[in-house]
């Protein structure tokens, strides 16, 4: 549990994660409103918690689902992140930073889950993420089966990476965060971030095209 650690985090991230459509989410005012709700939630106002939950649910799901790929526990992890955030609210120093703090908690849980997944596989457990139909349940219903298959192929390759390298790589390339942002989210130094990303890049580059923009 690193709620207290996370509490010291003050980095302000943009609220819109990469890959979302513009206009999905209000920009700057959101964090100011968040601060208000955080203060009220701290005082025990359940309605304020509900507002925070509904406001950040999509962002957090987006992040967790994309980092984990096909995994039946994604939704559990989203819930767990909120649960930890709400019970550690008093430790959040900058109430405006609720969104990035919440995301940091989730990133920590994702890392943990990825390590557990690897361990389970090594021990002969099925971590659930290996069932082929899981991809269907987490992928958007609006893309072609071919795209889903291709995404699954990328995740199968990502599964071969160490957990930290995978998370750093995806935050950098898929969520399009800067290195300092990735460093803040993962709680590791910028140098380590760069090393992790480089490791992932070198292992993946023969098989994966990183560019997010489609070729004309």
């Amino acid at each position, binding site marked *: 549990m690193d709620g207290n650690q996370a509490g010291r985090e003050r980095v302000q991230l943009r609220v819109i994660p990469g890959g979302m459509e513009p206009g999905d989410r209000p920009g700057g005012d959101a964090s100011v409103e968040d601060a208000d709700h955080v203060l009220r939630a701290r005082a025990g106002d359940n309605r304020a918690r509900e507002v925070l939950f*509904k406001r950040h649910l999509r962002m957090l799901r987006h992040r967790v689902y994309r980092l984990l790929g096909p995994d039946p526990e994604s939704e559990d992890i989203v819930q767990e992140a909120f649960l930890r955030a709400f019970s550690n609210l008093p430790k959040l120093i900058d109430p405006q930073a609720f969104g990035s703090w919440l995301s940091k908690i989730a990133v920590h849980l994702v890392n943990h889950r990825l390590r557990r997944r690897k361990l389970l596989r090594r021990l002969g457990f099925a971590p659930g993420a*290996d069932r082929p139909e899981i991809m269907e*349940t987490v992928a958007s219903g609006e893309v072609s089966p071919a795209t889903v298959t291709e995404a699954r192929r990328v995740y199968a390759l990502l*599964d071969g990476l160490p957990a930290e390298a995978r998370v750093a790589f995806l935050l950098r390339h898929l969520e399009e965060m800067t290195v300092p942002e990735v460093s803040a989210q993962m709680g590791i130094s910028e140098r380590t971030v760069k090393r992790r990303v480089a490791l992932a890049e070198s292992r993946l580059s023969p098989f*994966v095209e990183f560019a997010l923009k*489609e070729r004309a």
Partner: protein
Amino acid sequence: MSSSGSWTGGPGTPIGPGGGGGMGGGADDVGGKARLSAVARAMRVGEPDDAEVAWRALQARMLDARRARTRRRLWLALPTFTLAAAGALIVAASLRRQSERAAEQAIEVGRPFESADAEVALALPDGIQVDLDRRSRVRLESVAPEEIRVALSKGSARFDVEPHRPRRVVVNADDVEVRVVGTRFRVTRIEAAAPEDEARIEVAVERGVVEVRERQHAGEPHRLRAGERFSMPAISTGAETGGDRAAGDGDAVSEGAGATKPIGEAPVAPVARLASATRTSSPTEISAAIVTPRRATTAATARALLERAQIAWRAGRMNEAAADYAEVLDRHPADPRAALAAFELGRIQMDQLGDLTAATASFERALHLAPRASFQEDTLARLAQANDRLGQRADCRRARQRYLRDYPNGLHVARVSDLCP
């Protein structure tokens, strides 16, 4: 019934490079490389129109966490009580549960119980329910103030343990130890089909969480959640491989090398003998374990159905989830959660089953059951959308007007306003 067939057993199919010429439609221009942009497109999370449902689930979890804390405190405050010596009968199952049972019988601690050609429902102390498959063998290993231990040495059994029991429940099968957190799960010993094969122990979780550990490697336990299963080779050889011998054979139960507490081997208690002894047990002396023929499935509670539906939903078994929600509406129409069940049913009919007519009926029903419920904002938006797609312009307009009237600042205003112009 566990959903066995769907499990692949191994690590994720590693899909190598160049393995998919043309995979991903247009992958040709990148020389067979998979594209990260496919992930960006495939993993786009839509507007969370189940925010209300998710919020309720979270609140339930927060409440559970709080209750667990209170209960732990209560338990610590209770004076410890002494237990009769080994082999004594322990005060056990609740009277209410007992009255549901046709015939009741005691099994002594340490004495194995083996089912014959019929499934048997066992009630252990603390309301633990065990559905024992045919020709399977369990034994109540020990009952202590802090822990109840059960061992499965043959066949398969499903354990149903309510959460927040004061005592820890541990189930052993060979070298595998399952610690129960409050859950339903199945433990199976699969005997080797041929001499060169090995027997296996399998644990499958239906609901909740269990911790599994190998007793020989007293390392970190692994948490298994609903839908996950675990399988490993058995260390001990099977008690018997054929499984076709009648119950009541006087075999001693074989134990794994790592058995924590080998108890003097008692002969298998024959079912017939147990049955005949039934009437002699005094009514005040409640048995340690109560045996009845498997009862007909009792009507599931609304809560259990909703829980089951959620598990099915998460596992992608949409038809099952829909059936469970429909059953809630059928059996528990007056339950406060029926409206939510109707909404969820409609959502599945609309998104997964493609039955828009059924979906509109479900949404109407949800609105009728609880017109003021907070998730009705989503219901109305979806009702308008479904009617729009069906070409039911009048119905669509009605839903749209009601939405815009009731939720002028709602989440879906933009989308709903564009419908059925």
